[in-house]
């Protein structure tokens, strides 16, 4: 009995326990009835008679629309179509006239004018100019009266680097305004140009490179830095909350330091309040590689017409609770952080790091408007190397350039054109033609015959066409974009060059993997010469190199266009005067665009000893030519060359395996 009772009791207990468990949940559910029920959304009802509903418009209505007359342009709402006369730009291309500045002139303004005068767009005649540029500088004190060719402001660009009150002295009329950090309320999209607010000491040319040294954020670096009113940056770790904002928690623990104004913030994100004076912080953060987080700026972001700022900055609403924003920043996927950081650097280096770049970008934007359909596509503006070095006159299709094959899912075409330069001695390069024509990738051979001697009447029989282009030429003409070049790749050669078919084949296959770089056989390297306090370069063989001789090199034909149409004339003249300079110049150009070193491929050893014929300028440049590298550096504003320590060889190069297994056998010969 006892045991029965005990068992029964146990059973009762168990059951009540079970009941408790089962019972509690549904009761709980009833007790909290207000929770939204995800499983049964009410939603917009499915009307039974939905099929019978009438359309919102009956077709007969259409023709009844009253026609509208064309708009008359009026000054207040100037837009590109109404207030700019593009017909003036058609004849001589895009030419810019600058009004001589009235004294006194500020340093920034002087730099701007100097950079325009040095550009390829500049003209001295206001009559042939398509754009007239007037620089207003309030800090200089005086405001000039309306200039002589004013014409109601038509085709004028008024440059205002500081928020000037000068506009009151005369009506801006139909002039476009390029202003530093204009307010969004007065900015006319598609007509005005937004500039960044420049620091006083912004360099004219070149400019400091971006500060980012690595792609991903360093571990344990501060998550956010906040621009302070006093001009510094306040750092904050990841876990600080809103007190970062108002500074109430000054005594709070946690990582927090205040930096003086000049230093660049070292954080992943930089919070910039939207007030206009804070616009000056914007460039600083870009340079530092700190992702700008703008709290609804009242100013228009610089060059917003073409730059996709969503790729480099975050414009957040300042009224969103800061915790929400910080949480969002903290949870941002690493992929996005990585992309934003890199984009800040790209934009800084490409469009903002010098006055010259800013001015050129402004002019390029206006030129794009004139070009209309043949303007830069958005991709060219927003991915390296940027629109200033991707000329739309070459092509508007990104896959024609060497830079965008990845984004376009395309490949460079599989053939090359050999371009042989025959100089003064006038020796026809018959052996070289045979060797090059033997390559399966060769499409044609172009001979640039610029010797006084006449070319031979007959050329060797080859599988590919040999085209001879006669005529005296300057040295820099070897990089002219001849229309006969119909392949993406160019093999640039001197008459003295000596290459084997294997070498050509292998180099071309390598070039196909690196279409934006120069791929060649003979190299120079540059160095800093302490003794002369300048740059020098040498042909001495060493463990690294930074230049490829164009007497035997593969590169993309686009560099001919860039060489001829974008380089300042002064630099090309320099190259004509000192022939070794032309190699330096070409290497500077490619390195400035790609920011990468060229690529060296193996070159038969037997000829490396006797390389004098290949480099007719002797073993290394003459001392007089040494200065050309420094003049180029001045012209570019910086030293663009990058050194490499590697050479790309065939996979089985000199490996202890039967030579029959190797594809490029002749490279193996001692």
């Amino acid at each position, binding site marked *: 009995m006892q045991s029965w009772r005990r068992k029964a009791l146990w059973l009762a207990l168990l059951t009540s326990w079970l009941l408790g468990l089962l019972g509690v949940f549904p009761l709980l559910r009833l007790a909290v009835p207000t929770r939204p029920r995800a499983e049964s959304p009410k939603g917009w009802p499915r009307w039974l008679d939905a099929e019978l509903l009438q359309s919102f418009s009956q077709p007969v209505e*259409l023709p009844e629309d009253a026609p509208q007359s064309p708009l008359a342009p009026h000054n207040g709402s100037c837009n590109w179509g109404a207030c700019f006369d593009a017909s003036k730009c058609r004849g001589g291309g895009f030419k810019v006239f600058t009004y001589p500045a009235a004294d006194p002139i500020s340093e920034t303004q002087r730099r701007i004018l100097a950079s325009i005068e040095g550009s390829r767009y500049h003209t001295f005649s206001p009559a042939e100019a398509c754009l007239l540029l007037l620089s207003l500088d309030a800090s200089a004190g005086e405001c000039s009266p309306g200039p002589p060719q004013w014409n109601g402001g038509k085709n004028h660009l008024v440059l205002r680097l500081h928020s000037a009150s000068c506009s009151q002295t005369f009506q801006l009329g139909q002039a476009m305004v390029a202003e530093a950090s204009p307010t969004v309320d007065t900015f006319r999209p598609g007509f005005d140009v937004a500039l960044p607010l420049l620091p006083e000491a912004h360099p004219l040319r070149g400019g400091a490179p971006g500060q980012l040294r690595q792609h991903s954020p360093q571990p344990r670096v501060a998550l956010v830095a906040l621009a302070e009113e006093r001009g510094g940056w306040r750092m904050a770790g990841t876990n600080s909350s809103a007190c970062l904002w108002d500074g109430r928690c000054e005594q709070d623990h946690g990582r927090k330091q205040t930096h003086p104004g000049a230093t660049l913030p070292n954080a992943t994100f930089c919070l910039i309040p939207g007030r206009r004076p804070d616009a000056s912080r914007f460039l600083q953060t870009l340079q530092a590689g700190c992702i700008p987080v703008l709290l609804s700026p009242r100013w228009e972001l610089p060059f917003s017409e073409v730059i996709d700022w969503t790729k480099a900055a975050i414009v957040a609403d300042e009224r969103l609770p800061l915790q929400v924003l910080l949480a969002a920043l903290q949870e941002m996927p690493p992929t996005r952080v990585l992309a934003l950081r890199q984009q800040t650097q790209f934009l800084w280096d490409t469009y903002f790091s010098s006055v010259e770049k800013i001015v050129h970008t402004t002019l390029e934007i206006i030129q794009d408007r004139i070009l209309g359909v043949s303007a830069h596509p958005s991709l060219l503006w927003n991915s390296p190397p940027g629109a200033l070095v991707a000329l739309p006159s070459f092509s508007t299709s990104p896959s024609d350039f060497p830079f965008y094959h990845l*984004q376009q899912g395309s490949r460079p075409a599989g053939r090359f054109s050999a371009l042989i330069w025959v100089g003064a001695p006038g020796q026809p390069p018959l052996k070289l033609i045979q060797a090059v024509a033997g390559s399966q990738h060769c499409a044609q051979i172009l001979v640039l015959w610029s010797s006084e001697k006449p070319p031979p009447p007959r050329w060797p029989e080859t599988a590919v066409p040999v085209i001879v282009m006669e005529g005296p030429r300057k040295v820099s003409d070897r990089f002219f974009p001849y229309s006969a070049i119909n392949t993406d790749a160019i093999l640039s050669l001197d008459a003295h060059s000596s290459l084997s078919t294997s070498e050509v084949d292998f180099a071309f296959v390598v070039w196909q993997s690196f279409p934006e770089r120069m791929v060649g056989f003979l190299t120079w390297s540059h160095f800093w010469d302490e003794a002369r306090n300048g740059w020098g370069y040498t042909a001495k063989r060493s463990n690294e190199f930074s230049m490829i001789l164009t007497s035997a090199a593969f590169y993309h034909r686009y560099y001919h266009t860039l060489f001829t149409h974008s380089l300042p004339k002064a630099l090309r003249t320099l190259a004509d005067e000192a022939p070794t300079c032309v190699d330096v110049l070409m290497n500077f150009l490619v390195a400035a665009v790609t920011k990468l070193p060229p690529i060296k491929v193996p070159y038969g050893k037997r000829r490396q000893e006797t390389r004098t014929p290949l480099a007719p300028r002797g073993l290394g440049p003459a001392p007089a030519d040494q200065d050309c590298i420094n003049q180029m550096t001045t012209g570019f504003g910086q030293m663009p060359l990058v050194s490499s320590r590697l050479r790309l060889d065939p996979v089985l190069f000199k490996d202890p395996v039967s030579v029959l297994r190797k594809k490029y056998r002749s490279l193996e010969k001692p």
Partner: protein
Amino acid sequence: MCAAVKYNIRGPALIPRMKTKHRIYYIALFSVVLLGLIATGMFQFWPHSIESSNDWSVEKRSVRDVPVVRLPADSPLPERGDLSCRMHTCFDVYRCGFNPKNKIKVYIYSLKKYVDDGGVPVSSAISREYNELLTAISDSDYYTDDIARACLFVPSIDLLNQNTLRIKEAAQALAQLSRWDRGTNHLLFNMLPGGPPDYNTALDVPRDSPRRYFVLSSQMALHPEYREELEALQAKHGESVLVLDKCTNLSEGVLSIRKRCHKHQVFDYPQVLQEATFCVVVRGARLGQAVLSDVLRAGCVPVVIADSYILPFSEVLDWKRASVVVPEEKMSDVYSILQSIPQRQIEEMQRQARWFWEAYFQSIKAIALATLQIINDRIYPYAAISYEEWNDPPTVKWGSVSNPLFLPLIPPQSQGFTAIVLTYDRVESLFRVITEVSKVPSLSKLLVVWNNQNKHPPEESLWPKIRVPLKVVRTAENKLSNRFFPYDEIETEAVLAIDDDIIMLTSDELQFGYEVWREFPDRLVGYPGRLHLWDHEMSKWKYESEWTNEVSMVLTGAAFYHKYFNYLYTYKMPGDIKNWVDAHMNCEDIAMNFLVANVTGKAVIKVTPRKKFKCPECTAIDGLSLDQTHMVERSECINKFASVFGTMPLKVVEHRADPVLYKDDFPEKLKSFPNIGSL
């Protein structure tokens, strides 16, 4: 729990005293328990029936049965809107504070029928399109039925067509809405008559045949000045320009909207649009352009000649890629402007125009969702959709690669690299690897991933003394993917993955490998190279480890790579590859090669000449059979991964990287990396 235990203890003491009552007591207890169980059972099912009855009352009603609201003539008009409104001045973001996952929540007011004092309805009944639009919103992730949590409000008053609307009364109706508050956070839809066409024709098949007309104008109610300009163009350029107008001589019963005429020639509309390369969109009576959607749909490139006309969704869509915008002043030059466009660009524009139509305009649903997405992007800019996602047609998206490490940047040498050694229990060999690797000048830290859960790593005092920090990480499970975990200890960007039996690499070779990585930080830079080949007989991929002239993979038994790829491997590996690798205990290196090639679109870099490696293929001591099993397994991996990736991302190259002066006739003493390729 506590109560039960107490009862348990007291139980035996109580029972003897309850001898006579115990039966009743137990019966009572059991009935309570039984009742409880029944009640529980009922509770389990009851709430569901309540909910479903709720649904039932909402669904499936007629539009005519909605409640009627009478608007008195003197009911308040809403305040005049602020025309200078901007997102950050007029939009109340605080209402979006509740919304999770960076998604705005949209509330739709329930449908009512508004009538004025005389009982005349304010607007016509809800239109088919507006019903579709609200249905689309309601079916989307944006929808909420909780007005208190909504951040955006959509009235159910149909304002699509201004012509059928009584403006004042409609405004009064809006002002009645419970959260109207001067229209804050309210979204109103107003469209043009013409709207989304439903011609019920065979327009859907894009034509590839050449288009007969170069420029076509099909609008009917054009201002005479524009028409004159267009007709002048036609006179000048003859057949290639066609300017159409309304037909005047149509027979009865023919819908005039479906016909266009040029002189006496009658054309079917919109079919005629397919015959033209460019279709002119000139400013009409309204702000918007009804003809634009017809033009897009026909795959014709719109030529927009309407200053100050804001193209639809221009905030996110790059219309430069799909249309030609010509200032009104330049109308006479239209022909020459269009002729200057290269054929390739025209084809690109046609493709783009079609894509815009298909993605954003072809249905009311597409329009509604694009609208909400734009507003969502404004409110959560840090989670916004990118330019490429909005603008690139699918074919471009599939074919293109956006390299996550796109910035050409050579990291400073001073940063060095972190070596990660995966080990199980080969302590002796591990120690040798550690000693060898520690001789490399640029090594900054050494991380040992101890993958053996049954055995403790050796005592600290037993480890080799090296000049850089050495850290041992113990793992929870013996998985191959542990080697690619993004450990917090990795502070450098460069990572050297190295097996615990790779002792044959010289210090020069490792240092040179790091230098090569610095020049190619977005690639896998490794020592033993491998190749994938297409086996024509079997129609599948094959793994190749012979002496070949090409490489497409490097083994991660010794390879440098960017630490970001650790994050990708661990968290973003497509499909079930990661688990598959862990289950098979093989092919983690092939998976890494696939992953990196897929996101960067670039080939690996093999460094330095081939050596005899103590590689997985070579450890199979007992000869051919094991070796062959291994090769079969590796081939299977390649086929499996290619099917998961949906493509073969590996790139084949014919080069490897050597020091500049490798094997050159040059004094060895002067070479930076003399000890390369030695055994």
